[in-house]
């Protein structure tokens, strides 16, 4: 190493002796590829069959479902947000929870519109709350996360309905209670894993509490669902 340092000056001095001979020909060919085909493949999805389009979106939605069920520290939910999953889950949940018209046995249940409004309005209000408290997450990303994390509760609703097919008893109530409690804590935990990082440290509890309340209310609606007789 010392040798190199000592010979620093001579090395640079030696460079000046190197010269490029003028009679080495430089040749080759330059071709500009015609870009239209590539750009068509990348951006224009107009010519693909409809099946491809639908499957691509369904695959994205399914991938996000997997991310919700196994909440790791991945940013897929946040990066490519979409609202198809939340819409699907919300409509499914509202259809299963809804009550009938007045004078029927299902009168006390929440109406379809009530469930829909609670889920969407609730998500919007929680998103606004987290942004007002100084969060760095964007509006639609937060809506996306909150909507996708309803998945465990929708699964619990399906399980509850299946359990209720066997009649309403103390055992079925205990089973439903356990299932709903587990899925509500799973939902809260999953959405907190995605949302909590974007908040300043001294306000995390202020942001997590409305999320907890939101899933608690949805869990309550699922638990008190009583079948029509």
């Amino acid at each position: 190493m010392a040798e190199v340092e000592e010979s620093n000056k001579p090395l640079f001095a030696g460079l000046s002796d190197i010269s490029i001979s003028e009679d080495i020909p430089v040749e080759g060919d330059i071709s500009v590829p015609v870009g239209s085909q590539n750009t068509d493949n990348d951006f224009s999805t107009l010519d693909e069959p409809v099946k491809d389009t639908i499957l691509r979106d369904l695959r994205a939605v399914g991938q996000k479902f997997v991310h919700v069920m196994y909440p790791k520290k991945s940013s897929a939910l946040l990066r490519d947000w979409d609202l198809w999953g939340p819409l699907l889950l919300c409509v499914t949940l509202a259809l299963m929870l809804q009550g009938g018209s007045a004078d029927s046995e299902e009168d006390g249940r929440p109406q379809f519109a009530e469930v829909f409004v609670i889920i969407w309005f609730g998500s919007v209000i929680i998103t606004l709350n987290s942004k007002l408290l100084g969060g760095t997450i964007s509006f639609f990303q937060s809506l996306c996360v909150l909507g996708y994390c309803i998945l465990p509760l929708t699964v619990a609703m399906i399980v509850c309905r299946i359990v209720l097919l066997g009649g309403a008893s103390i055992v079925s109530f205990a089973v439903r209670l356990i299932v709903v409690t587990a899925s509500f804590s799973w939902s809260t935990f999953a959405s907190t894993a995605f949302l909590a990082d974007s908040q300043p440290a001294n306000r995390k509890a202020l942001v997590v509490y409305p999320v907890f309340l939101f899933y608690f209310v949805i869990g309550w609606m699922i638990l008190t669902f009583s079948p029509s007789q």
Partner: protein
Amino acid sequence: MASPDDLKFQEFEEAADLLSSNPGASTLSISNPSAAAASSGDVRVDLSDDEDNQQENSELLGGEKQTGGFWTFEYYQSFFNVDTVQVLDRIKGSVMPLPGRNFVKHHIRNNPDLYGPFWICVTLVFSVAISGDLFTFLINMGDPGYHYRPQFNRVSIAAITVFLYAWLVPLGVWGFLTWRQSVERHISGYTFLETVCVYGYSLFIYIPTSILWTIPVYWLEWLLIAIAMVISGSVLVMTFWPAVRDDTKLTAFATMAVIVSLHALLAIGFKLYFFQTPTKTESSHFGQTTPASHLTTTNVGKHQ
């Protein structure tokens, strides 16, 4: 002044009392504690934070914080400028009112927030509706003819009641105090947000009360109402009494009576509507009472 470290906490209390007695003179009283805090070696973070807050807001006392027009997002962000500890501290202050500690001056201290009132109202709506549901179920559990139905329409009614109370009543109180202030000149008023804040936090005591109301023991329910009303009523009284005591005796007492009675009406209304105890004849005719409730729900539905 002895060593500032020893006196720091007491000086803070002095500053708060000075602030409550002379809101207009706060610019003078702030400089002493902040000088004492600055002169000590180690600055304790939470106290200096409060001093900073007081210092920053010294020129804004009596007016609302204007950070941009009402069409910008930052304007609304200024109402959510609270930390978890601050919210918890305000809730504690609303549950344990000590005489002499004005809630607005001691806890809110020129940083009224909308987080507390809004989420306390939402939680109250759901806790009252859910507890009422549980109570109805527990009361009718022994009745073989009873089939449980979730009464979800009650959530809408609870929501309308709570939010109307939490916004219209402070509006009325604030308007009245401001009018008296313009007439009498020596009455200190509160800003609209501070009034909303006080009312919102004073509703917190009703949340555990409504959860405890599910226990179907008659005298316990009325005892709980009395306790909740005393606590949250005293928070309101201690907040608004300094504002009206300089007015004529009649106006002062009338204002206090109206505030307390409205608060009582809310509690009793909740108890009577959501936690109805069916009498013996009603429970046996439960099938006949349901058409009446069906009628009311259809009417509500049609008016939507």
